[in-house]
């Protein structure tokens, strides 16, 4: 539960309170109440329990993505890290369209 998961911002809601975010092909709506900096489409954010908690500096995105990409691809059933990552992805609101 202390592993945030990075995703790419696709769009921001009109009221600016939430964003559509892509997590390795899964689209979720995240709340923006507590993100540290303003975000725009194309930015990457770290998601924790359905909230963006950090805008990832652009130069450091690839490094941050690599671990999660690998874990999701290779994980055997029951792998704890992969389950935590998937749990974080499930924390976003489903079915939103931006």
């Amino acid at each position: 539960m202390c592993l945030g998961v990075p995703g790419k911002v696709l769009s921001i809601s009109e009221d600016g309170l939430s964003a559509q975010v892509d997590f390795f092909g899964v689209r979720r709506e995240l709340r923006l109440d507590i993100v540290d900096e303003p975000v725009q489409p194309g930015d990457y954010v770290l998601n924790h329990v359905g909230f963006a908690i950090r805008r990832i500096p652009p130069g450091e995105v690839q490094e941050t993505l690599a671990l999660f990409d690998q874990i999701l691809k290779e994980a055997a059933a029951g792998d704890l890290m992969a389950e935590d990552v998937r749990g974080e992805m499930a924390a976003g609101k489903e079915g939103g369209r931006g």
Partner: protein
Amino acid sequence: MASSSEELKFRDPGKARALTEALAREVEAIGRSPVSVMHVCGSHEQAIARFGLRAAFPRALDVIMGPGCPVCVTDTPEVDEAVALAAQGARVCTYGDMLRLPGTSKSLADAQADGGKVEVIYSVSQAVELAKQRPAEQVVFFASGFETTAVATAAVILAGVPENFSVLSSHKYVPAAMDVVSEMEETNIEGFIAAGHAATITGWGIFEPFARRTGAPVVVAGFEPLDVLAAVVELVRLVRLKRPEVMNCYPRCVSKEGNRPALEKLWKVFDVVGGNWRGIARVPRGNLDLKPEWDHLNARRRFRIDTAAVGGAERNVLAERCICGSIMSGLAKPSDCKLFGKECRPETPVGACMVSSEGACKIWHVYGGQPDLREVA
């Protein structure tokens, strides 16, 4: 799986080798055994166990998991409160790890089996949605997690919640996890690895008073195998130099001051209060509870919670043999427990450390029972 995890572990094989060699040199230069350092994050233990990092650590180095699992240190009476609220008819929403956490005689999973309304959620927002959809019910969010998770609870409260929503807070405060261990006379932890993503919120500056006061250096680490290895090298170097400093080895996610907007929200809603941590001690600044101005949303104020009705008068003989407290204090390893992998398993946990995906016992059990490969053979 083995080949691909090796691929990750050695994505930069040269760097991995250089770090392993540097670590061996640093530990040898200290010249005693064991040198003990502690991390306080379930995700770090997952990374260490999953990628077999202990095999790369010198024999004289102990990297121990401390009380870094907020679910594991959630005390029995707190679970009893949630079970009692479910028994009293409230709809109790909680993160999945909390479901099997044992109370005095029942867990929330037991309460659910008894017909109680218990919902597993991934985000506190889902609990608020449920409260909106069911205005005739009382919806209680049984909140767990460190500051990183508590900021989300604070955010929904500040954004406004329906009248039938309340919070039973079992949020914990990160610095307390290190304080409690450093104050135990039996332990001799010489340095700490702090959790990268929690520090995203708090900033690494929060650890400076601790390092100055205790003389133990703190290194903030990420979760890649190489991130962890690099952080351990830096930490052991600071131990050797006797420099009680804080070093940030995870700058891509962590700044000194942390996430200010989030911290402002956190401290508008929560106070640091004392609380009992399961199996460990009374921790003077261990818990986060709602400030008095939020009493109307505090389940402990809104309801008369009758824990006596769900408390077991009967002794739990198995639980008395559980050594979770010693494991979280760094005094014992999961494999030292006689119940580990026998009576105590993920599907039938006796102790809290076997419940959560961040508990040391569950992590060791899932990744092969004895992930310290130096002790096999």
